[in-house]
């Protein structure tokens, strides 16, 4: 029986509408409770911020892209090298940390759950092997469906039932959490050296549009009552003028009705990831501008969409995505090294290094657009804190982003003292936005909102019965003025005073004191077993003909996923 009291902390728990109250948080045997015995160990956190542990709703931390990135960017791996200690293995890497470093650094930030945002089913085994080597955090992984040949065929026929059965089966096969869509039809087009531009372009040889694929998958998602909505990286990422595509994508699912059981937790039927990359006006980078006001306005008026931002951090980083044609475009812009991979019948990925500089007008525009979205979207439950790690910057910069969100003075300083290019003032509305986040809103965008968006019923809040995933920060909200003390805010959020995961104290006094095995979270849909078998039987001849692996070697067997957290969902 391990009982603890976090004593006298200042608690921010948006899910329970606790906003800066001085109170105790208690947990016992890994679970939040509302009472403990007199034997409970007291952890004095007087006047320190207590929040649920962070949840990163969109990051790339495990899978083949990461490994290729590490292989071809050894110059990144030599940054952030530390020696092993009695507790920790050595760390390496900055934008693509080694697996142990990934877990350690998230834990130091006070995070407990991180969603791996793109997992090709064919590479799912590898992804889970890598998840197993990342300590400290729980990691759901999102299988890719938007360019899957079977999905596109079903979508062309508007065969929602078979798509639902296929998705249900593939979540079991890949041990995945939900439906991820990346540049629907575009990554398939890349196999022919092409891309799609806009939601009404057809994938070559499939006679189906991006819009049809997205709507079909959204309907299937709700038919299955999945805890998370479809999670989409829309077409035209990174292209000037792409905001119209983004608006059309969001609007395409406006009339899709939420699954009856999923509706109890989440509000949205679509989660748009790294919205910043999809918020550009113009016809080229010469005349590009910000469409953040238009997109924020749409989200403010529509409850069916949530987003995460993908905030540019102005660092040298590595971009990696299953949007292979976009990566090629980026390569042509930067001239830096590029790697590309086709995942047969499923998707295609690319990776290139990227240097985001405040001196660069385009990078500054991207930086400002991200902040505009944060500040323009009124409801913090509809927007999440991400950098699309590592695409717009490493997750270790979250504290810096928090400091920007909490301090208009700091943002103005950056624009006025030349830390960023003048395009921030000339081409965006950022200078006119004086909104400043408070700690409650920070807790919302980094904890409560991601938990609700993903349909988590065991984390993201300090509710009795929930997992004891808690972060304590050495910041006294009664004494600090975030608006004027941006540097202190960044420093305070950089390393948690305590990080508690499932009731185990992993970080204490800003040092990692314990290493915990990670757990994969996956969704098991019940009630569709017969439909799943029918679909598998139907596609087997095609699978045997076109896949380079045998069916028997395709699914992720249990021994690849040690100690998983299975979410059983009633799909009927």
């Amino acid at each position, binding site marked *: 029986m391990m009982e603890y009291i976090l004593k006298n902390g200042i608690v921010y728990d948006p899910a329970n509408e606790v906003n800066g109250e001085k109170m105790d948080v208690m947990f016992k045997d890994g679970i939040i409770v509302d009472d403990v015995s007199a034997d409970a160990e007291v952890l004095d956190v007087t006047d320190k911020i207590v929040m649920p542990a962070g949840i990163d709703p969109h990051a790339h931390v495990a899978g083949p892209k990461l490994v290729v990135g590490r292989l*071809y960017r*050894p110059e*990144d791996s030599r940054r952030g090298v530390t020696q092993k200690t009695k507790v920790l293995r050595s760390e390496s890497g900055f934008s693509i940390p080694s697996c142990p470093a990934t877990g350690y650094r998230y834990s130091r930030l006070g995070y407990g759950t991180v969603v791996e945002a793109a997992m090709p089913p064919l590479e799912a085994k590898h992804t889970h092997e890598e998840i197993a080597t990342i300590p400290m955090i729980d990691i759901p992984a999102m299988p890719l469906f938007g360019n899957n040949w079977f999905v596109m065929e079903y979508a062309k026929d508007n065969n929602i039932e078979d798509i639902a059965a296929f998705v249900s089966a593939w979540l079991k096969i890949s041990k995945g959490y939900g439906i991820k869509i990346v540049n629907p039809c575009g990554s398939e087009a890349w196999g022919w050296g092409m891309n799609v531009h806009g939601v009404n372009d057809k994938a070559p040889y499939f006679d189906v549009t991006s819009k049809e694929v997205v709507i079909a998958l959204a309907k299937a998602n709700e038919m299955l009552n999945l805890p998370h909505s479809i999670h989409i990286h829309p077409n035209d990422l990174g292209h000037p003028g792409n905001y119209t595509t983004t608006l059309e994508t969001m609007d395409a699912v406006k009339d899709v009705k939420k699954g009856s059981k999923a509706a109890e937790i989440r509000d949205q039927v679509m989660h748009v990831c790294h919205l910043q990359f999809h918020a550009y006006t113009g016809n080229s980078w010469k005349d590009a501008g910000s469409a953040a006001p238009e997109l924020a306005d749409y989200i403010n008026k529509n409850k069916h969409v949530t987003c995460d931002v993908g905030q540019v951090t102005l660092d040298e980083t590595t971009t990696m995505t299953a949007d292979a044609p976009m990566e090629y475009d980026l390569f042509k812009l930067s001239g830096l090294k590029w790697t590309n991979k086709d995942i047969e019948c499923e998707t295609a990925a690319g990776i290139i290094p990227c240097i985001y500089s405040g001196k660069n007008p385009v990078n500054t525009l991207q930086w400002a657009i991200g902040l505009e979205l944060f500040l323009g979207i009124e409801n913090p439950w509809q927007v999440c804190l991400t950098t699309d790690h590592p695409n717009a910057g490493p997750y270790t910069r979250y504290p810096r982003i928090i400091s920007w969100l909490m301090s208009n003075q700091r943002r103005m300083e950056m624009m006025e003292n030349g830390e960023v290019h003048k395009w921030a003032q000339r081409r965006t509305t950022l200078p006119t936005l004086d909104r400043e986040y408070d700690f409650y809103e920070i807790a919302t965008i980094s904890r409560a909102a991601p938990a609700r968006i993903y349909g988590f019923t065991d984390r993201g809040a300090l509710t009795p019965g929930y997992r004891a995933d808690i972060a304590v920060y050495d910041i006294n909200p009664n004494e600090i003025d975030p608006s004027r003390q941006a540097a202190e805010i960044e420093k305070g959020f950089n390393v948690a005073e305590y990080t508690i995961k499932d009731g185990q104290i992993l970080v204490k006094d800003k040092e990692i004191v314990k290493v915990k095995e990670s757990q994969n979270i996956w969704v098991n849909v019940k009630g569709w077993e017969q439909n799943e078998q029918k679909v598998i039987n139907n596609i087997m001849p095609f699978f045997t003909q076109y896949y380079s692996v045998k069916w028997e070697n395709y699914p992720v067997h249990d021994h690849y996923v040690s100690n998983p957290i299975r979410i059983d969902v009633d799909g009927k």
Partner: protein
Amino acid sequence: MFNLKTITFDQIKTSSIALEFDELIPDEIYSWTEADFAKYQVPIGNSRFPITDFFDITVVGEANGPDDVEMILNGDLNRVKYIGCKMSGGKILCNSSVDLHVGAEMSGGSILVKGDAAAHAGREMSGGYLEIEGNTKEFTGASYIGEWRGMTGGEIVVGGNAGKQCGECLTGGKIHVKGNCDILAGIHMTKGIIEIDGDVNRWPGGQMKNGNIIIHGFLGRLLEGFVLDGIVVDPEVDGITFEGKYIKYTGDIGLNGKGNLYLGAEANKEKLAEYGELDDEYTSIREYRNL
């Protein structure tokens, strides 16, 4: 520079696994006494051992900063790597051949190696002076593996021959090889000067975007991406005049490169049918298309 403090390392034992000297640079040890060295443990592989197991260390004089320090390393340094790595001032004298990464990432000061150097000598240096009296192996003045930004400043002088990919990704500074040079000198370079007194095996300047390569000796094989620019006499490159007659090429046109490659005309006579014309074997892409 007048040195106020001399730190002499006299070898008493060698190691089969290389000692790593990146912590023993003037910047770090200018204030150290012999007692400090007696406490210091040097990294060897994944462990550390007392430096005094391998060297007798004598400290003479006082220093107010790294510029006041001269380190003298005596003995067999073939298994001592990272000598002078990241130093910003002072002098290091190595009285034998050295292992990998000598002078890597140095930004100031000077290093003299009275022998050969293993690979990555002067890797990514941004300033200072590195002289190797003997030969160097691969990647002299180059970038770290995978990195696209190599040496950005300072000067490297190689008294003997240089190995493969000398000056890879050079983005500034000067490399002077007094002997011969192996393949792909200046590959990916974008700035700076590589001067080679001897012969070059083949393919200098591959994918170069800018910068200058001057080869006084014979060139075995030129890449196809270089276009004959003409014959030049006493060309001036970045303020330095190179006397004599040179065949000048520009390239690498595969990357729209604007780099210059100067070949000593005397040593490359067979490439000249007559002034301004090349043998078929060395015909550039552009000339070939114009035929």
